[in-house]
């Protein structure tokens, strides 16, 4: 949480592009199209991602605008589910399957292709019995001022957010640069960009000469 309670941990973006005047009417459908949906099947390491409401990750219907639109702020969340199998438990079950196949077929070794089939079948069985790990990360978008923040700072989470945001709204997001603070001072921004890194080491002045 963060938008409604607790501390905020955010990366800020500038939203590029025109927001339609009738966004209040259009965005519910766009959010519903890209809302979180349970996948029909899972693979190892596969992620399922989509939007959900901030207050409950099981709520993925954006038809009622009052649940996510607060005047000029849009507040929603990115839900990402992932399933993983416990490696030791999987290996234990797999060894049993291999032993049973050998016994049933009077062999001492399992051919490679059969082994792969056994492995995939066991993975599917166990994935069906396994609950996913679930992560939600909040988003708050100020459509008037054209910024959005994502409530995480990891690169992978932010990359996923930006891709889904673009896919949903057709709008690019540009990560904040300190130079954005100098938008009305282009000469200063260029000078700062070109200034490079200062050497703060006390003995560096002597090395460079004091006549800088």
């Amino acid at each position, binding site marked *: 949480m963060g938008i409604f309670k607790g501390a905020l941990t955010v990366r*800020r973006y*500038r939203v590029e592009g025109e927001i339609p005047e009738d966004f209040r009417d259009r965005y519910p459908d766009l959010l519903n199209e890209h809302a979180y949906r349970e996948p029909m099947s899972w693979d190892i390491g596969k992620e399922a991602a989509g939007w959900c409401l901030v207050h409950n990750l099981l709520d993925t219907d954006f038809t009622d605008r009052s649940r996510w639109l607060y005047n000029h702020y849009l507040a929603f969340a990115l839900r990402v589910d992932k399933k993983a199998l416990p490696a030791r438990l999987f290996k234990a079950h797999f060894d049993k399957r291999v032993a049973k196949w050998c016994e049933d077929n009077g062999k001492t070794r399992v051919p490679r292709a059969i082994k792969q089939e056994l492995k995939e079948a066991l993975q599917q069985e166990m994935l069906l019995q396994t609950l996913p790990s679930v992560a939600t990360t909040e988003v708050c978008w100020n459509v008037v001022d054209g910024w959005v923040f994502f409530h995480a700072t990891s690169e992978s989470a932010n990359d996923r957010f930006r891709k889904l945001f673009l896919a949903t709204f057709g709008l690019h997001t540009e990560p904040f640069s300190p130079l954005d603070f100098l938008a009305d001072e282009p000469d200063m921004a260029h000078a700062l960009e070109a200034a490079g890194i200062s050497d*703060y080491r006390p003995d560096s*002045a002597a090395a460079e000469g004091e006549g800088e």
Partner: protein
Amino acid sequence: MSKESNPALPHLSTEFFVWLWYVTDRDGGTVNLGEEAGVIEVWIDERLSFRTHDEDKARAVLTGEDAASCLEARAAMASGKVVRDLRLRLRKEEREYTFVLRGSHLDLAGVKLPDHAPDGEDELLYERMFLYEEVWFLMRALYRRFAAERTAPTWHGVTLKAIRAWVGGSRNALDSEEVDA
């Protein structure tokens, strides 16, 4: 219409972090941001971390009440490390904020907002976003002050010289800059 993207070059943030640290020490935690934001209090709040120029991983993390003033912090700078992140405490009038400022995008982490208790969910969001925006507004004002100093003709001859002396441990550097300036 799409604006041209500004690069988030690492030195744009690390130089700012050093300047913030230096200025809060030099000015005793009070910064006058003029018409833009008035007088605010700002100081380093019990955390500084350093990295080398070519990697993002923190190589030295200093915490505790004396994090900003201890010799280890200056020693890290003197060895050529750069500030990776710092925890700031800002006070504007009666409102006080703490947060960690980190990385080339100036990510904000663990932002604690002043107490607020509005009625209703809508009002709660508006108030929290107002407070978040105030943090961002104050960061903007501080950054603009930094940019003005960093691009001024006196940077190398006065400010950088004073920062080097300060990094070297000379407390007189803070006074001498005022005299030089």
